[in-house]
């Protein structure tokens, strides 16, 4: 098991919002100018803290969508209707505001070139966010490690980063819609789809699976059933069970 030395204290710092881009009707990418940012690895996340006028605070974690070498630190946030922090970040926050954050956090669900590959990235919904950071990093360093992405979204309108993910060996599947003129797949990421699109187990791919719990459980289980080594499968889960 690889170790990373993240032993410095993670202090809260202010980052200036430079841009808020709508990715879908409920998801926005927030580009930040974080002058004290110590740098991150693709796949890590940050803690965000909001403070109300009476001092009340709320904290949540968000995946970093930008590559380590990108100009801005970017968080992609999906609005949860019953959420406390995500509606603020997606509806209220605007360029010029300061956002308090600390990080980077998490050293396991990361990809860097020294880990090798081939890599298989499997994302469900906004679980694609840290995988996008990995792909941007992979592209930025012109890595020759073979990479494949399997990305599942509910509908075509829910797809994040459209136009950016196509350059890879990408399989996109829609679970709640079967649009006309759709050349991707439909249906869940199941045993059959993975048998077809994942690297064969014999190639020992390093696999990253991120999404809601049900998605991650199903995908990880199918991969193990296909013969992939459980120790080569890294998962990140979010959302209620």
């Amino acid at each position, binding site marked *: *098991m690889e*170790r*990373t030395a*993240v*032993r*410095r*204290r*993670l202090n*809260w710092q*202010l980052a200036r919002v430079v841009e808020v881009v709508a990715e879908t009707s409920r998801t926005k990418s927030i580009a930040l100018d974080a002058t004290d940012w110590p740098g991150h690895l693709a796949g890590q996340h940050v*803690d965000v*803290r*909001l*403070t*109300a*006028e009476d*001092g*009340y*605070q*709320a*904290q*949540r*974690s968000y995946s970093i969508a930008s590559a380590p070498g990108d100009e801005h630190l970017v968080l992609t946030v999906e609005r949860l209707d019953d959420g*406390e922090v995500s509606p*603020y970040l997606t509806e*209220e926050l605007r360029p010029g*505001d*300061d*956002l*308090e954050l600390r990080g980077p*956090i*998490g*050293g*396991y*669900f990361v990809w860097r070139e020294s880990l090798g590959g081939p890599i298989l990235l499997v994302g469900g919904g906004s679980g694609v966010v840290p995988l996008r950071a990995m792909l941007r990093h992979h592209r930025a360093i012109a890595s020759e490690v073979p990479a494949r992405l399997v990305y599942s979204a509910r509908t075509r309108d829910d797809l994040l980063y459209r136009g950016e993910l196509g350059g890879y060996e990408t399989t996109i599947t829609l679970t709640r819609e079967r649009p006309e003129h759709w050349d991707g797949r439909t249906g869940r990421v199941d045993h059959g789809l993975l048998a077809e699109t994942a690297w064969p187990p014999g190639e020992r791919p390093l696999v990253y699976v991120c999404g809601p*719990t049900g998605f991650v*459980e199903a995908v*990880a*289980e199918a*991969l*193990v059933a296909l013969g992939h080594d*459980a*120790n080569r*499968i*890294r*998962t990140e*889960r*979010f*959302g*209620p*069970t």
Partner: protein
Amino acid sequence: MAPISRGFHGRRSETTEAERVPPGQYVTRDFPVLSAGPTPHNPIESWSFEIRGEIDEPRSWTWEQFIALPSERITVDIHCVTKWSKLDTSWTGVSFDTLLDGVDTSAEYVLAFCDGGYTTNLPLEDISDGKAWVAYEFQGEPLDPEHGGPARLLVPHLYFWKSAKWVRGIELRQDDLPGFWENYGYHNYGDPWKEQRYAGD
């Protein structure tokens, strides 16, 4: 004092709950799942729980032996480092006071080990005197595999990553060996009331 987030009002817990929620946490009614890898599924016949390391005679129980040990019903609040807290969770499990009864050891630390390779470290005193259990039921039902079944640690006074899923035993140690998340920048001890989330907190 942290700067005000313009236009943020927040959603406060009820006062009675607020006192039970450590700083930076929010109350959830769900039971989120967080694991670094696939959920292991192993036959219960091959399950055992072991105590090894600084102990003259290592102890080991099969599943049948383990669930025949004196058990306790525990109702506690749990706090995950990813910010959610869940109040009044009820568990059935075996106290470490039972498992370690009569053990004479020079150890001051333990390293819990699990199916799937996960580990976490704790001071021995943090699993002593009614502070920690090996739990195998949640709300009266067998513990789901995705929540750590067949059995997981339950150490509710520390952040929940210390309550290792799929636990298979502990190693009694004289030195403190950081576990899985403790090696990836999370706090070595993890007291939620002191908000010890990450190294240096």
